């Protein structure tokens, strides 16, 4: 009655203590990145539906309290498997422990809960993502033949641990260059809440402060990248200053096609979602599948059975791969003025 879009709502009649398999998924937010709502939800739903299990996917909207409430409610609702993308390790651990004590199996999706007790961990390597961004920026700066380029960094939300991991990744590439004097370290700021509007203001002030002397921007995701590009466009610098991104959003890919953005990182979310869904469905049916990899939890020292996927750097040359992967459709991407660029990039 309430506009259920999951079509899997038969669980309400059979909530007798987890006899029916039911999988609960908690996504973190929809502000930091498009992916959770546009990609993860879609792929997980597809996988679950195909397997014929019941599921319930919810989004905590960045709120820890909501996150825990959702977990409570899913367990109450009879979920037997809980898959979470934690907002932070503390809440994550609280949720995992509580679930475990009730006999509910758990999976860490995308983010590892330090000191947690999840059965599996499925993710991309976030530091690797950062590394790809750093390498991408270096490549673009080299291509632009920049001498002693000033690099500005626009990090994600300081309250988001992943943003720190990304930063670790790209700083591991850039810092040696700064130290070697090849690059000049420019302003380096965090964007509260990953807020694109604030990112715009922040970058405008960076540009003002540097009197326009910024030659490359390491933006932590496509949204921030687009905010940077907006400011660059205003100063007619777009395309001349390479900007990075992440998530391979339609907007980011369009900016790449237009030549305003140098690269983005494509995380084949479908693979990640499928891998996680596969494990979850297994758990729901009472099978414990084995994985090839493990990740060592730095806090507890436990070896967590893991599936780790590799991110891909996307530039103008391989935008078509993303489309081919079905991550974005041609219709979404090649609207209006981008049609020509699409053809040029070999997207058909």
């Amino acid at each position: 009655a309430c506009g259920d879009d999951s079509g899997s709502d038969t669980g309400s009649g059979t909530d007798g203590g987890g006899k029916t398999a039911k999988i609960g998924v908690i996504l973190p937010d929809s502000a930091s990145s498009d992916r959770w709502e546009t990609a993860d939800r879609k792929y997980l739903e597809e996988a679950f539906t195909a397997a014929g299990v019941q599921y319930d996917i919810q989004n905590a909207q960045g709120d820890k309290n909501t996150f825990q409430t959702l977990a409570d409610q899913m367990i109450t609702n009879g979920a037997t498997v809980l898959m979470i993308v934690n907002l932070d390790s503390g809440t994550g651990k609280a949720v995992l422990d509580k679930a475990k004590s009730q006999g509910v199996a758990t999976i860490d999706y995308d983010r590892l809960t330090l000191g947690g007790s999840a059965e599996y961990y499925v993710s991309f390597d976030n530091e690797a993502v950062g590394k790809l961004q750093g390498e991408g920026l270096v490549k673009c700066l080299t291509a632009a033949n920049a001498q002693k380029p000033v690099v500005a960094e626009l990090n994600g939300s300081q309250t988001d641990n992943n943003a720190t991991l990304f930063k670790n990744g790209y700083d591991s590439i850039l810092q040696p260059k700064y130290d070697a004097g090849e690059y000049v370290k420019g302003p380096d700021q965090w964007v509260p809440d990953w807020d694109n509007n604030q990112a715009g203001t922040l970058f405008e002030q960076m540009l003002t402060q540097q009197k326009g002397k910024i030659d490359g921007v390491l933006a932590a995701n496509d949204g921030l990248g687009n905010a940077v590009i907006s400011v660059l466009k205003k100063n007619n610098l777009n395309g001349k200053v390479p900007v990075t991104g992440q998530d391979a959003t339609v907007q980011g890919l369009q900016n790449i096609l237009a030549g305003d953005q140098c690269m983005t990182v494509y995380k084949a979310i479908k693979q990640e979602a499928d891998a996680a869904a596969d494990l979850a469905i297994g758990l729901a049916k009472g099978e414990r599948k084995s994985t090839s990899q493990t990740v060592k939890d730095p806090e507890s020292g436990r070896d967590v059975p893991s599936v780790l996927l590799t991110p891909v750097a996307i530039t103008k040359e391989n935008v078509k791969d993303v489309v081919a992967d079905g991550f974005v459709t041609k219709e979404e991407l090649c609207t209006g003025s981008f049609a020509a660029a699409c053809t040029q990039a070999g997207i058909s």
Partner: protein
Amino acid sequence: MTITAQHIEPAAVTPKPTVASHARDYVARIRGGELGALPAVLGLVVLCVFFGVMRPVFFSAGNFANLFTQGAAVAVIAMGMVFVLLLGEIDLSAGFASGVCAAVLAQVVAVHGYPWYVAVLAALATGVVIGLVLGFLVAKVGIPSFVVTLAAFLAFQGTVLLLIKGGTNVSIGDEVIIAIENRNIPPALGWLLVVLIAGGYAAIQLLSVHRRTSRGLVTEPLPVVLARIGGLVAILAGAVYFLNLERSINPALNSLKGVPIVVPIIAVLLIVWTFVLRRTAYGRHIYAVGGNREAARRAGINVDKIRISVFVICSFMAAIGGIILASKSRSVDPNTGGSNVLLYAVGAAVIGGTSLFGGKGRVLDAVLGGAVIAVIDNGMGLMNLSSGQKFVFTGSVLLLAAGVDALSRKRAAATGHR
């Protein structure tokens, strides 16, 4: 010397009311629009029925217990907020103040490894200091509370970030602190509490009736008082009975029953603050300053002191809220006390019937309003909705609950009451 002692006439008393006249008056008052807590309770019942019908699991013992632990922090912060709102002020920083206090707690207990009571004391002290500073800026420097607390809202956000270095999060391992939101009191103790609270209430009520009657003052008829006591006993006993049911999904694995520890904490806070507001001169002065600051000043009340004190109370309660938040998520991070905590806390107080313009409100309002919000949040979590739908739906339900209240109070305005 009371000047007028000379011409004592028989005290101006109304004829002794009977149960019948009392009931008649009550109905007339209701029809005249003096509804008290009725609409909030009504809204609560409607919401529960709605969610219960949509999702029968809503009425399970487990979910009932969840309701308390989920709503505790907001209700506690809202209780403190009532004091600030009673003066017609606002504290936008209460959310992040709870974050700061939680961060202090985490620093002391997790990073520096002091025992839990030191950490709790430190957190509470931080709350008091915050309140003193805010109150001073509002009352003595004269900056509007909205601006002071907006500035504090920003500053505290930063303080948490600085305290919890660089935005990681600090796990809290201390079992005592974790217990607040995650453990229950033994069922027997729950029953003992019922007896204590109900007994205390009955004693106070009956004593007051006795004292008034012996002075020849108007009192409520005894049956009415007894009925009220009976009602309280029924509610308390019902709740404790329900919470004492086994609610583990897998009882063999882990038995889960009893009143969550946070419930008696809230009950004590509710009783203490209600007592302060209704039975002490200080509480009376808060209402006076909120109703007419100039009149209060002319009556010799130290208005500045009252204004500072409510900010202290609010921040102190925020500190308790912060401890509860930390206990609930077993960790503290830069977002603790952020996002919706503040708006929900103010909303809880206002939905319960506290006025934003001062002079009107009760601590119970905060708890009732907090319950409304907790039920909405809880029920919504049981529905399979997308985030967008959920936001829209939460908003609509909130509006509906407030609408019940507003429409029933509208009669009041029509008949000349406030």
